[in-house]
């Protein structure tokens, strides 16, 4: 997800540096206040750790691997602000020293991954974990979901930034100057990879590390669980048994999500929001739009803004029809998403069946965990 130089226009780069700056400033001040002089060694060593985590290849059901960001665990262990600093530091070194990600786009990458990622991970974790005990399996699920949504939130931001480029930045002849793919391609293309592979990697690392820490070093989880007492011996032993294993339903949920979302979108007919002007005027299409928009009828006249925008879009190329470009690509990608979801569900199912056959009906329940 590291955006290289040349993919974003200077205006976009500047805008994103500008958006990141206030967060950096606040993060520095907050962390200074919280950590005092401890700030420098803690952020530094943790940034080194984040960097290395980004190199881990996490196996995903289906037989591939993907790289996590580590933003989930960073936020959960350090809190969002220190996580912003640690991840930005790691991203800086990746960009400058290792050439992973651009320099003009460092602001954008930090905004997407370090800032948006950290905040989403922290908020989701806090909301879902609630006031549960530090060693409860609910925290593992909260961490896993936090990581998953964080990386997808980051990916969404990146895909929107990239997808807007060809709308605004073209040569006189109409060639895109920077990222060439419009929103309709960029968003699905990037989101698919993250909703599936990268997201699952992040989910595994976030949930897995929290589960590990619950057993091995629960005090590290205290910072984002204010007011909740550390467990006694018995509670820790209980955590050893549940933890990650009890999160099997999570895998099933993710698999179902991957399968149902494309189906849902396909079933709804035209992807919501991808309508053309014609759709606003043809009665059949209008009915469909109303159906998927909770029975709110679309406006009788084409929204003037849309009309104007679409003429800007189509004027130079009378033969060009947006749907030609978007629908086949979109449908293709949807089926990939669908396929991955099926693979995830099938592998969970087969592992469960295999366990059942090996250990008998009692054994299958005793063996916690998924594939």
């Amino acid at each position, binding site marked *: 997800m590291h955006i290289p*130089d040349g993919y974003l226009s200077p205006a976009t780069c500047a805008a994103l540096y500008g958006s990141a700056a206030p967060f950096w400033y606040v993060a520095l001040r907050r962390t200074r206040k919280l950590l005092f002089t401890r700030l420098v060694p803690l952020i530094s060593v943790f940034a*080194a750790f984040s960097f290395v985590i980004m190199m881990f290849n996490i196996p995903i059901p289906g037989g591939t691997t993907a790289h996590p960001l580590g933003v989930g665990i960073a936020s959960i262990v350090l809190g969002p602000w220190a996580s912003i600093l640690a991840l930005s530091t790691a991203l800086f070194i990746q960009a400058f020293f290792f050439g992973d990600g651009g320099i003009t786009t460092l602001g954008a990458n930090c905004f997407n991954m370090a800032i948006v990622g950290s905040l989403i991970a922290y908020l989701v974790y806090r909301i879902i974990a609630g006031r549960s005990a530090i060693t409860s399996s609910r925290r593992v699920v909260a961490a896993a979901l936090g990581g998953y949504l964080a990386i997808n939130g980051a990916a969404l931001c990146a895909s929107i930034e990239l997808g807007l480029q060809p709308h605004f930045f073209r040569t006189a002849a109409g060639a895109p100057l920077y990222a060439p793919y419009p929103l309709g391609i960029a968003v699905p293309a990037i989101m698919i990879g993250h909703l599936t592979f990268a997201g699952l990697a992040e989910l595994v690392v976030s949930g897995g590390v929290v589960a590990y820490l619950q057993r091995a070093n629960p005090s590290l989880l205290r910072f984002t669980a204010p007011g909740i007492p550390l467990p006694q011996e018995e509670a820790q032993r209980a955590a050893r048994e549940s933890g990650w294993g009890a999160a099997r339903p999570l895998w099933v949920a993710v698999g179902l999500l991957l399968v149902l979302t494309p189906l849902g979108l396909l079933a709804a007919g035209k992807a919501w929001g991808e309508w053309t002007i014609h759709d606003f005027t043809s009665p059949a299409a209008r009915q469909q739009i109303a159906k998927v928009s909770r029975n709110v009828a679309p406006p009788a006249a084409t929204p003037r803004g849309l009309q104007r925008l679409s003429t800007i879009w189509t004027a130079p190329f009378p033969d060009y029809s947006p749907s030609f470009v978007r629908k086949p690509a979109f449908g293709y990608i949807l089926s990939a998403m669908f396929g991955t979801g099926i693979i995830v569900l099938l592998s969970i199912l087969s592992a469960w069946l295999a366990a059942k056959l090996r250990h008998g009906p009692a054994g299958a329940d005793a063996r916690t965990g998924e594939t």
Partner: protein
Amino acid sequence: MATGNHGGKRGFLERTTASFVDALEHAFYAEQTARADGLLQRLDARVKLVGILALILPAAAGRRFAVIGGLFAVAVVLAALSHVSFSVLLKRVWIAVLLFTGVIALPAPFVTPGQVVYHLPWLGWTVTSQGLTSAGYLVLRAETAATLCVLLVLTTPWNHVLKALRVLRVPAVLVTILGMTYRYLFLVLQSAHDMFESRRSRMVGELTGRERRRVAAASAGVLMSKTFDISSEVYLAMQSRGYRGDVSILDEFQVRRFDWIMLAGFSLISAAAFWLGR
């Protein structure tokens, strides 16, 4: 001894470990080249930082092929004068960028609307000139920017790059954090590498997917605990030598006439590139 291979494909431990080793090698090569006696190596780090950034910006922003190409040529000349091996540039930058950005740019000629210039025989896909232009921009920009950035890093000791950031008003505390991160990066890389190696040597046969994920998560967890232990100890060591929260940075930078001349050169090229590429 069997390792977690997946029918010939490298297992996740091997691939992760390979990334670690690659990072260590890159750093080693960078430190070596920085000590060579070339044009860029003799430059003051601050002039280099500002100068190269001044070239990257028009490369990323410019709207003319010729301008970006010209900047790329400048980068190549600087590389040659600084004893940066072309084969290394090829392997680490040019091919890597081509594989990454090239793959991303590949669909663009077929997908971008515009004037059709070619029809693919069997598939019937059309290639547009706007698409080709767009793909060209993407690849050329990425190559040029990456080459310039790598030049900076290969010809300057990393902590000089960091200290030079002060000239761009980066706060001292951030420069210190970056310096310490870089130093501990290799410690953590080594730790992780050793952990994975010892795990590989203890594995017989294949692990299931679930076991591999557990190994990955546990390794990350162990690494994180070590991270905290190290940071606590480092904190004590810093305090022991008088650290009270203020950071002072001592550099040995000196700007000589040669540096001023080069700075003028960089500014000239940069300004020209901006003007011509607007």
